[in-house]
């Protein structure tokens, strides 16, 4: 269970939000919505532990996330605005590396399969430098295929730069994860129908 209590976010001189709280049971998709600059990315980074909240606390299974940080990070899959892939490495090399870092490991063959499932068959052994924006995003998203064991997915605009087919693929991946007991936090400006059973919405910057 993921719990946020009375979060406040201050960036520079501006307060982006205060008093934000939620409680998410296993198997829930939380969609964070709000206009540009309302603090969606900041909230997601707080949940990951990258950004310390100005006030409030985030609890994972009843414990503050900073208390058992390594264990918490083992449960976490984060996709930010930046893809987190190396331009000079191929898709397969990127995936094998990132999964070794995540502690799960991936064989080159499994990485190849994951990339193929995201429609990158034939592009696995090219340096990602030569791929298009959408294809790079797909390489980054292929990580999720190895992170089903992670009980918390935090996805910041995962659908950016993807075409319709890839959007559907990723939406299914997300729905699958939530329906099988994972918690997914998501921001998106696109109208995407994620076919999930339990969905909640958090609105930022409304007041």
């Amino acid at each position, binding site marked *: 269970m993921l719990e946020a209590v009375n979060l406040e976010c201050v960036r520079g001189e501006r307060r982006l939000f205060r008093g934000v709280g939620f409680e998410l049971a296993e198997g829930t998709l939380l969609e964070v919505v709000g206009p540009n600059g309302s603090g969606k990315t900041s909230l997601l980074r707080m949940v*990951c*532990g*990258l*950004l*310390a909240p100005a006030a409030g606390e985030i609890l994972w299974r009843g414990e503050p996330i900073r208390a058992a940080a*390594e*264990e918490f*990070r*083992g449960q*976490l899959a*984060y996709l*930010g*605005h*930046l*893809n*987190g*892939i*190396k*331009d*000079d*490495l191929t898709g397969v*090399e990127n995936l*094998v*590396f*990132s999964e*070794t*870092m*995540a*502690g799960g*490991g991936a064989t080159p063959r499994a990485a190849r399969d994951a990339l193929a499932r995201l429609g990158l068959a034939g592009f696995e052994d090219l*340096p990602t430098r030569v791929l298009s924006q959408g294809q790079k995003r797909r390489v980054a998203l292929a990580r999720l295929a190895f992170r089903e064991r992670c009980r918390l997915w935090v996805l910041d605009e995962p659908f950016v730069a993807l075409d319709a087919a890839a959007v559907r693929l990723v939406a299914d991946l997300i729905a699958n994860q939530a329906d099988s007991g994972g918690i997914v936090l998501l921001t998106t400006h696109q109208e995407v129908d994620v076919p999930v059973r339990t969905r909640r919405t958090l609105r930022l910057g409304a007041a």
Partner: protein
Amino acid sequence: MGSLDAFRALVRRDLLLALRRRADVLTTLVFFVIVVSLFPLGVGPEMETLRQIAPGVVWVAALLASMLALGRLFSADYADGTLEQMLLAPQPLGLLVAAKVAAHWLVSGLPLVFIAPVLGLQYDLPWDALGVLMASLLVGTPVLGLIGAVGAALTLGLRGGGVLVSLLVLPLYIPVLIFGAGAVDAAAAGTGAAAHLSLLGAFLVVSLFFAPWAAALGLRISLE
């Protein structure tokens, strides 16, 4: 052993990246060679003077070359988001920083150790002094990388970070410079360099122990 696997994977990745962008790596080495080679041309060919300034010149050049390379330590990973992913990996961040510094030293520090004796010949250094020069660089350049990593982590993403990092790091480099150059001086004078080298070794042990964790804390602050 997940953490050791991650350490190895990170070293291997950084070496592979260095191999694919060789120009970046060669910059440091070429800088070092050029700076050291310019001094005899400027100072003139008196053997006695050259022998005297050699340890200082080589060590100062190594220091500046190491500073020059610092900018590359974290900035590329920061820009493409892989650093963010590293911070979120379930591995001790200090260990990952150590892996990055190790790979960084292998491509930017170790080559200096091997090229230094060739450059030392231009200064007419005796053979045993050349050996000590290599040994002092072998022990000293990792210290420069480790201390530099703390500065690079703290100034990551700042405008004018390059100037700031030199202000932060250069004062901390001074003991390494003194004992590194001192070791070669002592060898050339025939008094034995063991004491200087032991002190350099002590610096290495201390910085190996503390610098990765300090740099890890710096990275967490810089990425907020």
